[in-house]
């Protein structure tokens, strides 16, 4: 077992010698403030919609975004155990990205019950009601996007991106991300935003050197 891991590391080292560095920016083409919707949005008889602005606060869209470079032949990263905390009627990480085979612990830090469930094809589950301090564990064996909700609290929503690719990242505050020693070839650069969903762009990684890529993510609702 150790040997296998070692040889993998060796191969990775060899590969990196012949690859290029990939760096890029995720570009959010719309506003970076959180869109708010008032509880009572529309009058049935068509009076003007009443929107409240008190809840408008700046959020970092990149916190809710994951970028993954797919298409390589390299094996995934080793599985990890991550914690998705439930605190203040929210999942404390909007988006989690883990290598395939990882385990996520759903910890309830709120003084009330939560019921975490997912309908996603990649991994559907229902953890049932459990109180404060308890945690339930799910192992994600298939790559894909798993969207997680709470049955009791309709506003709780998180996503776990399970990937078989070793190149994944959450962009930093300015939206930039980078991977070193990516072997040359054609790749799909995928950005998944919690609200805007999937955005993909094709890139070609050269033998050596560096490339810069941009991926545009429209966050706001686009009316057709």
């Amino acid at each position, binding site marked *: 077992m150790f040997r296998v891991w070692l040889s993998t590391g060796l191969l990775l080292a060899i590969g990196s010698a012949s690859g290029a560095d990939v760096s890029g920016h995720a570009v959010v083409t719309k506003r970076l403030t959180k869109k708010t919707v008032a509880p009572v949005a529309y009058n*049935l008889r068509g009076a003007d919609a009443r929107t409240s602005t008190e*809840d408008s606060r700046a959020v970092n869209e990149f916190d809710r975004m994951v970028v993954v470079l797919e298409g390589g032949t390299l094996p995934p990263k080793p599985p990890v155990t991550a914690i998705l905390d439930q605190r203040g009627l929210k999942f404390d990480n909007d988006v989690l990205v883990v290598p395939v085979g990882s385990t996520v612990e759903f910890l309830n830090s709120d003084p009330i019950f939560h019921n975490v469930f997912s309908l996603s094809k990649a991994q559907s589950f229902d953890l049932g009601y459990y109180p404060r301090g308890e945690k339930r564990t799910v192992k994600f064996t298939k790559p894909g996007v798993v969207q997680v909700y709470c049955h009791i609290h309709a506003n709780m929503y998180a996503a776990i991106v399970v990937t078989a690719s070793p190149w994944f990242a959450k962009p930093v505050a300015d939206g930039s991300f980078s991977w070193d020693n990516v072997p040359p070839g054609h790749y799909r650069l995928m950005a998944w935003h919690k609200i805007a969903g999937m955005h993909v762009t094709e890139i070609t990684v050269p033998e050596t050197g560096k490339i810069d890529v941009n991926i545009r993510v429209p966050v706001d609702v686009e009316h057709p």
Partner: protein
Amino acid sequence: MKRSTSLTMRAFLFAFVPLCVVLAGSFVALNALAERRIKQGLRDSLQKSEKLLAETHEDYSRRISQFLTVLANDPGLKAAIGLLREPSTSADGAATIRRTIEAQLRDMHGLAAFDFMAVMDWKDRTVAAVDFGRPVEASADVSPQMPAEPGLAVTPGGTIYELTSTPIAIDGEQIGALKLGNRFDLRRYHFDGETVLLRDGHIVLATAAAAAWHSLEAELSNQCRDLNHECEMQHSGETWLVSPLHNVALGTNYRLLVVRSLDQAVHEFTSGWVAILIRVGACGVLLALLCTLATSRSVSRPLRDLVAQLRRAEAASQLPESIDAGQAGGEIRLLADVFNRVVAAEHRTRAELEKAKVQAEAANKAKSEFMANMSHELRTPMNGVMGLTELLLDTQLDAEQREYAATVRESADALLAIINDLLDFSCLDAGRMSITTAAFDLYSTIREVVALLTPQASRKGLEVELRYAGDVPSQLLGDALRIRQIVTNLLGNAIKFTETGRVDLSVTCEQRTEIDAIVQIAVTDTGIGIPADKLDVIFEKFTQADGSMTRRFGGTGLGLTIVKQLVERMGGTVAVESTLGAGSTFTVRLALPIGPSSESSASLAAIPAHGYQEVKPC
């Protein structure tokens, strides 16, 4: 006012017509006022209705929206929508998601029975829709076009939904929308009159009968350019008030209009008090009628009483002694008093005249009787004179004595003729002359007269000719003596007033029947004639055409008067035609009964004609 209109009618018209005019005027004014008020009232009521509706709906909508927000806040629904954001969602997978969401919508329908429910994704694309007004299996195909804003939406099949949209959000982040709607129910907006829903100027729904939509649409587009403002239009012979409902937002291309008939509203409003007004008016008219009739009658009754009194007097052909003004006073009593004074004066005058007339008649009669008696008395001595003169002439006289005696006899004859005329006239004037009726022979009567007067004519060198027509019956009934006197007078006059020429006497029958004949005796001369202006007076007493003639021709002037009176007493007429200087024609027409047949005439003729020659004293 016509002169012929009676006093009663005038009084009535003066009182009644102004009343009617005032009534009619007030009616028209009230009607106009009512119409103005009603228009304002309709506007106000619509505004109130709209305001009330808006207030009600505001509260209702808030509650509904809260409820819908709860509905939209279903974690299962949110999770299902979230699946669409996952990568590698195949078409098959999308269909599964759609079916899942539709199943959830049907489940929601148990909570809130909306006719139409749909879920949109965060890009406003329809994820799933269920139309509960339609068969379940066809639901996805007949989804209405979703408007961006809430309002009305129409399915391809023409069903109109009123849609409301509730966002589906996670922690304030919109991930989709829940659209819920009910079939648009026009009755909710049906306050009064007709409610019409227009889309782009075309009627899509209306409470009016579908047959009227087309004409209504045409009138609206013709007469109401701006449907955002109230307008009036003419439709099917009535005036309609078209009011838009502003507080109901149905989408930019929809207009909701309330169309109400002003005429009908006015009619409904006025029908009540029109009936009252008509009753009051009728009572007023009746009262005015009675009052004016009573007034005018009280004015005219005394007058009509006076008229009735005069009418009675008129029927009796005499002036009334006096007329009675009755209870009336003032002008009418004055009128009656004046009339009575005039009548009294008239009565006095009339009595005096009557008295004078009686006195005059008595005096005239006394004179005539005196004349008659006197003439009679005169004849007795005349007979003595004439008889003794005849006797004297039979004695032995010398030539001179005989001449004197003959002169006496001629003078006596002339005097006797005058006395006879006076006697006849007096008898006629006193009304004591009687006409007898007996059979006589007209021809021989006339022959005798001609024979008697021919010598007198011959002495003046005149020719006398008698033409007796063959068809004139000889045997007639009448007073032979008077007819002889008439013919004698006419023929004697003709001979007297003719100097030269001739005198013709013609007897003709103008008309003849079995029982009587109208005989015409005409005497024509070639004498001096009579002036036209004197023709009327020659039959008067004691007159000749010229006063001087009496001295020239002699005579009493009574001859023609006697002829006229005799002819009239016999029921006949006498006429004269004359040309001054050329001659005259006197024509007597007498209707005489035909006497016994000529076979018996011999016996009648036996009566001696001369037996009647003497004038019978009256």
